[in-house]
């Protein structure tokens, strides 16, 4: 099979992977992986706190490496690859965070919001575009709205000046048919590139990402060894290999991306992401993969089943940034269990 379509890979290892280690990636980690990804010919290397620029905080987790050091380090070690950042308005402000980041040489700004809240991205997208950097919009937790509503939100981002829109399966909830339907809707309704960011809660990350490519997406995210929040992301080196088999052009050297993945395993990870039972539940419940660690910890503290917590969070449609609710849910479930036992 031969495709003419060129795929741009955005490597989220040093951003989404930061979730998996409590945002503790060091400058040395960043430098060595950037070198390896750059050598492999990865289009874009995304760097930063798991929740993006300016998100280091007590509530979301304090990053070991401050944004300015992470970005300066990455910039120094990327020559061919572009340097990307994830920006959630609210966590990142234009004056305090975005301007300094652009001054450090960021090439691609990915401005993200919850899937139904694209409006909050207007200023950040417009500002980034006006500064001459490439800017994409990202719609997180995209399983929570229909393809038609997703298109409405994506069109807003396009109107603000986004040059691509990536929809994110933040809780690893999708199966390939879901992804195909959304990509087709977006490709038909937008004039800009469409992208997809997978999580692997149901073991579908590669299949979903390939489905996205087959339906017309040209911006695909992946992480070395799947290093990312919860059950991890689409495993980058596997994705590159599969795309190569399918005849897509990514511009990535297979051996070198395999080397980069080996390096990532040796230097970045405490453990390789696996699909744990709670991850399956998180995917089924449609809850953000990054909640796995706090949910597991808090459930243990209250002696309740973390799977019940996930399903309750899913029922309440809780999204990233609402981590405080985990505690509230756990308390309620514990009280309910106590009453039931009396």
């Amino acid at each position, binding site marked *: 099979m031969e495709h003419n*379509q*060129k*795929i*741009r890979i955005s490597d989220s290892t040093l951003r989404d992977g930061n979730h998996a280690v409590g945002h503790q990636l060091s400058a040395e980690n960043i430098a060595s992986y950037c070198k390896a990804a750059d050598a492999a010919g990865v289009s874009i290397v995304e760097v930063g706190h798991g929740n993006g620029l300016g998100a280091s905080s007590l509530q979301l987790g304090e990053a070991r490496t401050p944004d300015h050091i992470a970005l300066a380090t990455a910039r120094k070690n990327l020559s061919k690859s572009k340097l990307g950042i994830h920006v959630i308005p609210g966590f990142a402000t234009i004056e305090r965070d975005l301007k300094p980041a652009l001054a450090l040489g960021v090439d691609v700004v990915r401005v993200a919001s919850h899937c139904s809240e694209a*409006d909050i991205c*207007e200023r950040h997208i*417009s500002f980034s*575009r*006006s*500064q*001459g950097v*490439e800017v994409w919009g990202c719609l997180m937790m995209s399983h929570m709205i229909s393809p038609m509503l997703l298109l*409405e939100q994506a*069109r*807003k981002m396009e*109107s*603000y*000046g986004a*040059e*691509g829109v990536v929809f994110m399966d933040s809780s690893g909830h999708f199966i390939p048919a879901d992804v195909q339907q959304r990509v087709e809707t977006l*490709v*038909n*309704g*937008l*004039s*800009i*590139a*469409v992208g997809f960011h997978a999580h692997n809660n149901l073991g579908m990350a590669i299949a979903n990402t390939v489905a996205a490519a087959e339906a*017309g997406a*040209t*911006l695909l995210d992946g992480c070395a060894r799947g290093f990312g929040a919860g059950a991890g992301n689409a495993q980058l080196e596997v994705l590159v290999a599969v795309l190569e088999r399918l005849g897509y052009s990514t511009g990535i050297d297979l051996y070198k991306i395999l080397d980069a993945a080996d390096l990532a395993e040796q230097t970045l990870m405490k453990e390789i992401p696996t699909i744990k039972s709670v991850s399956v539940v998180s995917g089924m419940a449609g809850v953000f993969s990054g909640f796995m660690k706090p949910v597991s910890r808090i459930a243990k503290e209250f002696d309740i089943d973390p799977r019940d917590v996930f399903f309750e969070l899913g029922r309440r449609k809780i999204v990233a940034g609402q981590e405080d609710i985990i505690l509230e849910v756990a308390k309620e479930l514990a009280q309910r269990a106590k009453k039931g036992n009396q």
Partner: protein
Amino acid sequence: MKLECQERTRHDCLRILDGRDKALDPLRQSELVVIGGTGFVGTWIAEMVAALNDGYQFGIKLSLISRSTDQFANRLPHLANRPDVSLIKSDVRQLGQFPANADWVIHAAANPDVRTHASNPLDTASVIVDGTMSVMRTAERLSRLQKLLYLSSGLVCGAQPVTVNGVAENAQGAHAPDACFIYPNAKRFAETLCSAARAQSRIPVLVARPFSFVGPYQSLDTPWAQTTFLSDALRGHPIRVLGDGQVVRSYLYGSDAAYWFLRILTAGQSGDVVNVGSPVGVTLQDLAIEVAKNFEPSPEILFNTAPRSAGRSAQLLPDTTHAQNEYGLSVFTPLAEAIKLTAQWHRMQSH
């Protein structure tokens, strides 16, 4: 604004008026009101009126009505402080203070920024629809009114069918009733209001449908192709083209457009609808090349990987046969010259 920029825009107007001023004679010693008068179109009309008054002694009294007269006065004192120009701060939906002796009215009030359409679709529609209703009610009280020109949009007929070379005024298409098409659909309904006002109140109203423009006074932070290309190049960045660069658009220069509007206003028959734009198409790839020619070193041109949807029209051009045959209008400033003048103006303005 810098003196050399003022001189440039004045020169642009005089260049267009040379040998064509007689066609605007009905404007002599009259009172013209432009509602929504501080945007791109209003500013160019003000420049053209200033050139007519100073260069040809037309004696036009011009009133510009807008919510943003303060910014206009700060930005363009050479227009705002003229004795023949009055600024009236007002929302189009509440036109309390309106020149009672207006002979001519141009209604151009609407926000063309697609970002506002996306974030505030209801407000976008309100300004267009409620605003047009308000203008029609006001026009009913104007005893001297000769004609009212409503500036609609070249988008009201929907996407250009792949089978035609340009969208004619009588095209039958329309956009889907989705929020993302609030602007063209509201404009379309506003045209209906104009028609209703003509039928019910005998208001002499005609419609111009603007397509795409280029020139000084266009904000470079708007996410349109030519403004983005210019902005990229002025910053010394590569020019980034969305998609494969084969989308076709056309651009009419600001001073050309101002002359077209005044000519249609004065010569048009009530009820007429006229496309305003350039019929000369250019691919975005060629547009990027044209922009790049004006910079040294020439910026790199990059294409992103967005595939174009099959069946989506890649072209939006006006059919301007009617404007040409009925009003003698044509493109006075070719695209290459328009881009050159615009790039020079922005460069002068920033230095």
